[in-house]
């Protein structure tokens, strides 16, 4: 990041904190409704000190990783099948589009009925929330592959299986990576949402605890953590991969 850009960002967030502190000092709302930045930081410090925060983050992220991995694997397979076999596209494809429109939170009641208040239930919600975004993007990516790549590969002797790993996936990768990115965003929302409703460990659970204790600063602290992780994954992990892919694939 350029120094000037960094300075701009620091300045912006510093201003938010100053305004926030100012609003708090003006005593418009009582402190148990509108905490000061200091309260929130204190709350974070508690969470760090007794490690409950790390435990919450770890639990949520573990569920995210497991769920997202399953969603990516399943979405890749489904998307490639849809792109390569027209019957699959006409049948399963239309179902995928329909399922995609259901918010992942709406799967929670079903997940609880099927799996009870378990990790499996939460991971189910994550998978179902992310898999269709990966599927649809993979499908689009494979459909958009320059046909010469496939012809050249087949001409050089690639069989269908080799074609998938050596051509279809890499050639569609610019699309697939946006599928991962969307999938990750849905998965992260899914984890937090499911944890809220399951109230079974993780950051979502800590949010719920904060509400039950009427502890607004804890609620805000956890929200900041959720946002921070989101920014980190989007801005660091995915940005790096996307930049590399865009350059390598000659898309910029």
């Amino acid at each position, binding site marked *: 990041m350029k120094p000037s850009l960094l300075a701009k960002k620091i300045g912006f967030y510093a201003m938010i904190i100053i305004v926030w502190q100012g609003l708090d000092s003006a005593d418009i709302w009582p402190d148990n409704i509108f905490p000061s930045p200091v309260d929130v930081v204190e709350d974070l410090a508690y969470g760090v000190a007794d490690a409950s925060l790390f435990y919450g983050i770890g639990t949520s992220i573990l569920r995210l990783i497991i769920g997202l991995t399953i969603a990516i694997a399943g979405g890749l397979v489904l998307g490639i099948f849809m792109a390569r076999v027209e019957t699959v596209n006409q049948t399963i494809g239309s179902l995928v589009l329909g399922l995609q429109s259901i918010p992942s939170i709406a799967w929670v009641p079903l997940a609880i009925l099927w799996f009870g208040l378990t990790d499996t239930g939460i991971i189910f919600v994550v998978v179902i929330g992310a898999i269709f975004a990966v599927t649809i993007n993979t499908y689009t990516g494979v459909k958009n592959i*320059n046909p*010469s*790549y496939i*012809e*050249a*590969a*087949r*001409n*050089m*002797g*690639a069989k269908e299986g*080799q074609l998938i790993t*050596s*051509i279809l996936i*890499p*050639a569609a*990768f610019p699309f697939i990576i946006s599928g991962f990115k969307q999938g990750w965003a849905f998965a992260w929302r899914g984890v937090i949402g499911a944890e809220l409703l399951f109230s079974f460990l993780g950051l979502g659970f800590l949010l719920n605890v904060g509400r039950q204790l009427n502890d607004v600063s804890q609620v805000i602290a956890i929200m900041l953590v959720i946002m921070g992780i989101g920014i980190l994954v989007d801005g660091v992990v995915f940005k790096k991969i996307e930049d590399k892919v865009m*350059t*390598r*694939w*000659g898309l910029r």
Partner: protein
Amino acid sequence: MGKLESRNIEKYFIHDGKPLKTLDGIDLNVEDGEFVCIVGPSGCGKTTFLRIAAGLEKPDEGQILLDNQPLNNTGPDRIMVFQEGALFPWLNVQDNVEYGLKIAGIPKEKRNQISHRYLDMMQLTQFATSYTYQLSTGMKQRVAIARALVMEPDVLLMDEPFAALDAQTRDLLLVEMQLIWQKTKKTIIFVTHNVAEAVMLGTRVLVFTHRPGRIKKEFKIDYKRPRISEDENLLPYQQKILAELRPEVKK
């Protein structure tokens, strides 16, 4: 009986809802080790013919025989060099060149050995680890040629591989191509717009008619090799071929 035989190939494409005849009975017998060049006006079906010979397109009539076996699929026995290169942008130059070898399960060391030979021949060694977006059009075309040559196919199908090259590189490769051919005795079908190129390379030059493409005339070029572009003795061949080609281009 020949290495690659084209029997009465006809091909139609649908244009504005109507079938449009693109190839009109291509009868061709390419002997083992022949270097056949095809020239013809743009849109006369040269690429289509090569694609059919490669098994990438189905003819509507007729068939292609390789060693007397009718073919209907593509495969590494007939490697095509695409007009637009079709390099894989996610692989670097060396991995592009080694692609077919890897698919065939050839071990890494062997692959490297083979690819280095051809990268060197195409003067690409320095760019082995570059990606396609870092290459000029001519360099890409050379990678595409190297990628085809490493496969050591029985038949090479080349679709205007030198069209994007600068004059110096082209002259170099025109000689190199003849040496490769003499050394390996490959059977080559080579499509080009450039009559001088065809005369330098070909044992035989076929002139296609304006669409629908037919073989209008063929010329045997019996002349010593390697032929160089400055050789004035090649001019009469060029003139005879141009005399046949010109009216087709004007149509």
